[in-house]
């Protein structure tokens, strides 16, 4: 960052909770249906329809809150946020305002300084304040693609209207675009980890907004902030924040002011631009939602949800380091996704070789997974099969190159390591009796060379090794061959 300046960034994340049905009605939340087919009087905002809270949304919201270090409030209330927009049929969004479902979160994330290429240099912990996580309903969608006269009309699909969301708001605690980037990744993984949300930015079920301002180091107040929207991936978000920080610093240094406004990330031109919208004062006139009772949960219920929580990724990472002797980088990569972490732990336990398992999974398996664009849960390789392969390698029954080839084949076909090894004829012969037989045959056929060797020509030892290996079609374990040859000669 430019000398003397610092960035002040706060994040707002909207995550779609993984329920089957909407938050205040029983319409399905399924994606990609015919327009307006997943609708009913409640989510269409028809007169007289009344909302009823979906308890599953509350449970998932609680899991999300606990995974992010928030405190669940025993009493919270829903409130109406009033504004006009065609995708909001009631003219208000049911959200939460002064009594949110959860608040006062303290979250420790790992964040890294990056080099010019965005590669992490060193990971460090950072503590941020999460102001609140509240429950609310999503709006519908404006659609334009493939429809006529889009310069005159907007087309509205209300299938998404009423989908449950958790809105997660941080204090302005981030000082760089990469910290914000690491935070969003942390949240995304946490939500997926506890099953609260698919948290897929590309599919739109995790959306983020960044509030960005800059100030001179030492200043305590805040300068006007710019709200960044249309951040369709974590990387775009990081770029948009970076661009915005520099734009603001340059404006101040030219003696200009920064206006409080909403800007969108322009993917094509790599810049932010002002959102065109009719000038409208944001005055949401929140008031308590009279159609819904307060949301009250008991201490016992909160304890029950806590007890059902899985081990969180950071705890698992630290345990991998401690119990399995992995490096921070390796352990951190293994907990990047829950199914991978679980796969690793099972493989490590079944094979009894946590280090080899980590190496193999992080190098070979991850490459196959990335090439195929799938997660380990979606692949044909199970932890049992992986452990079998690790054992074969550990016992030296196959070499490293063969192990890689076997894995690729297992990945493709779903066959077991033993099956592939057999098919490829990789199985090493380590059985001493079998090798002794081969050695005896070679000694018998090469009487002259044996005599030479026994007279002191040590150099031709390699010749015997070669002959035995040939006789075994390359399958004999060279270590055993050496030992047996030395004994017999």
């Amino acid at each position: 960052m430019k000398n003397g300046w610092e960035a002040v960034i706060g994040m707002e994340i909207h995550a779609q909770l993984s329920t089957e049905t909407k938050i205040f009605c029983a319409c399905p939340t399924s994606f990609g249906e015919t327009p307006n087919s997943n609708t009913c009087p409640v989510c269409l905002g028809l007169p007289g329809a009344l909302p009823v809270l979906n308890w599953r949304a509350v449970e998932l919201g609680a899991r999300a809150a606990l995974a992010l270090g928030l405190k669940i409030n025993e009493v919270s209330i829903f409130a109406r946020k009033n504004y006009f927009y065609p995708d909001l049929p009631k003219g208000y969004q049911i959200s939460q305002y002064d009594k949110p479902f959860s608040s006062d979160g303290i979250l420790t994330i790992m964040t890294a300084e990056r080099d010019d290429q965005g590669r992490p240099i060193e990971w460090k912990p950072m503590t941020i304040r999460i102001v609140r996580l509240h429950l609310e309903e999503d709006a519908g969608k404006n659609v334009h693609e493939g429809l006529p006269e889009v310069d005159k009309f907007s087309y509205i699909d209300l299938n998404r209207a009423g989908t449950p969301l958790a809105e997660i708001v941080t204090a302005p605690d981030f000082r760089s675009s990469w910290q914000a980037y690491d935070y969003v990744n942390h949240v995304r993984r946490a939500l997926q980890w506890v099953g609260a949300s698919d948290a897929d930015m590309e599919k739109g079920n995790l959306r983020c907004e960044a509030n960005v301002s800059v100030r001179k180091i030492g200043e305590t107040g805040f300068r006007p902030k710019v709200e960044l929207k249309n951040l369709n991936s974590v990387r775009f978000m990081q770029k948009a924040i970076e661009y915005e920080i520099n734009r603001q610093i340059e404006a101040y240094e030219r003696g200009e002011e920064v206006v409080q406004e909403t800007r969108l990330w322009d993917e094509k031109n790599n810049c932010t631009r002002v959102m065109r919208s009719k000038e409208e004062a944001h005055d949401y006139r929140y008031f308590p939602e009279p159609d819904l009772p307060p949301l009250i949960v008991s201490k016992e219920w909160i304890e029950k949800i806590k007890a059902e929580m899985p081990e969180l990724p950071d705890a698992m990472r630290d345990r991998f380091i401690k119990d399995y002797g992995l490096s921070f980088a390796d352990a951190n990569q293994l907990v990047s996704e829950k199914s991978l972490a679980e796969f690793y732990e099972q493989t490590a336990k079944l094979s009894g070789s946590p280090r080899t398992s980590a190496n193999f999974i992080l190098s070979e398996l991850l490459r196959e997974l990335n090439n195929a664009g799938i997660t380990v849960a979606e692949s044909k390789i199970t932890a049992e099969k992986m452990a079998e392969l690790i054992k074969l390698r550990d016992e030296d029954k196959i070499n490293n190159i063969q192990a890689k080839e076997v894995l690729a084949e297992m990945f493709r076909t779903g066959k077991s390591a033993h099956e592939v090894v057999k098919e490829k004829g990789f199985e090493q012969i380590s059985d001493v009796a079998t090798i002794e037989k081969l050695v005896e045959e070679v000694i018998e056929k090469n009487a002259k060379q044996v005599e030479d060797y026994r007279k002191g020509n040590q150099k031709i030892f390699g010749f015997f090794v070669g002959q035995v290996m040939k006789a075994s079609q390359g399958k004999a374990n060279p270590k055993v061959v050496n030992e047996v040859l030395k004994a017999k000669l």
Partner: protein
Amino acid sequence: MDVRKVAKLAHLEITEEEVAIYTPQMQKIVAYVEQLNELDTEKVEPAIGGLTPEGQATEAVRKEDKPHQTLGQDSAISQAPDAHAGYFRVPKVLS
């Protein structure tokens, strides 16, 4: 009482004559409600959620996260003033 602001937020167009009529009317309504401020509520917990007795509140939820029959596209748009290809059609909104 800024009647113009209220009208703007409600997307209502009102004339100067109407402002003159509504302003005293709305002042009266607000004054009526403001009588509540005369009560000493220092020791009273805020009532949230109207008539529902606290503690019973969470009973009024759907415990089942199972989809029910929806209206479907045809019924959903049947009352719309304008629709096209299964969408509600409205004047263009800028974004």
